[in-house]
């Protein structure tokens, strides 16, 4: 099977409890034909990276509405690289001030999506940028 679905991890790092957006996205990406691993609320960077490694995902999507993205997201990216998962596409969604976008990109984030983003935009971004892994 060469046309296997891309596998996407959707996680909410940190303490904010607003997971509606992450769930809507997880469901929407399911409908776009992705295999979505949803890990839920209150994930530490370590939990997210362990899940990404065990699930061998192509994409990690982080949903953050708390404002803690400058602390949590670079940690996830660093730990992904440390585990040899530097080729996994990282995208962040939530309330991200414009000024933070460049630093996040520098940390290893490929896509930053704010309010008003459609599911289709995220799906198209993933299809265009993820590299499916083959052993």
């Amino acid at each position, binding site marked *: *099977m060469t046309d*296997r*679905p891309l596998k996407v991890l959707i996680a909410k790092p940190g303490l904010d409890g607003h997971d509606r957006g992450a769930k809507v996205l*997880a*469901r929407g*990406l*399911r*409908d*776009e*034909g*992705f*295999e*979505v*691993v*949803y*890990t*839920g609320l209150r*994930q*530490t960077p*370590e*939990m997210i*990276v*362990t*899940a990404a*490694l*065990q*699930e*061998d995902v192509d994409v990690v999507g982080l949903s953050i509405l708390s404002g803690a993205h400058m602390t949590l997201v670079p940690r996830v990216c660093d730990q992904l690289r440390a*585990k*040899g*998962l530097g080729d996994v596409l990282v995208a962040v969604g939530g309330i991200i001030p414009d000024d933070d976008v460049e630093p996040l990109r520098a940390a290893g984030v490929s896509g930053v999506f704010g309010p008003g983003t459609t599911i289709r935009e995220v799906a198209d971004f993933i299809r265009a940028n993820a590299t499916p*892994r*083959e*052993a």
Partner: protein
Amino acid sequence: MTEPGGSPAERAAALADAARAGDRRALARLLTSVENHTAVAEQALRLLYPLAGGAHLVGVTGPPGAGKSTLVAALIAQLRASGRTVAVVAVDPSSPITGGALLGDRVRMQSYASDDGVFIRSMASRGHAGGLAATSTSAAAVFDAAGFDVVLLETVGTGQSEVEVAAAADTTVVLEAPEMGDEVQAIKAGLLEVADIVVVNKGDRPGAQRTAAQLRAMLTPPGESGRADGPSARRPDVLVVTALTGEGVPELLAALDRHRADGAAEAAPAARRARAAAQVRAVLAERLWERLASPSLTPTTDAALERVARHETDPYAAADALLAALGREEAP
């Protein structure tokens, strides 16, 4: 971990060695290959299959919302406390429309991020209908060969007849929630017949003990009702568990261990042969389809399918014709 390079056989050997040596990324990558039916996966499984067989394969099945993932999480905790390593294959359904899937079983299994003795892998069913994914048994064999003591196979939420897990596992746990039906439900054929252990989960709910009592009364082994060669000659244990709090989980683990110890003497050879038959049958079907889809046979195959679709012939005649076509290919 070595980067892809070399022949499939070389890459398979490198990945299999690394996975057995404890390289978790190599193990994860190997499982992806298995899911995707790659040439590397086939080579790796040939290497790993003879090394498997030491793990206790435990199937966990039951209707959606009965608490399978929560019970698996509770079992992981109990198994870790007893010093055993645990791998989980957690299957959720793929969409028949888009092929996408929402794999949500990890939500209940959060606490093991830094524990190398636990490895959880979610799998989409990818169109397979028996409660597992087509590759779940192979994934379990990979975990087995990688040295995990226990492999928990969690099925999709099942209805009444997804009994495939019983062939894939040494011990099958069927989960029920309280008040899901009366005694007539308990005597219907199907899922409950393949249970080695029946767990009534949500034991803190009213009705749990009553449900367990009804199940105990009705789950008479077929042997006692006249057929000695029935599907299960044992009366399954019926346990009441509250997975969320861990109440009853030590007793469940004891029952699992007991079943394994007993099984080694009794039903195990037959169960293992049934599992082997299921695995070989699956590969055989796959191989047949692959050959029917080969360039030389594709026109014949397509024509046969088209004729069945138009009701010009029946599926039996078409299958016989395709087998005959395969035979002609084979002849020198």
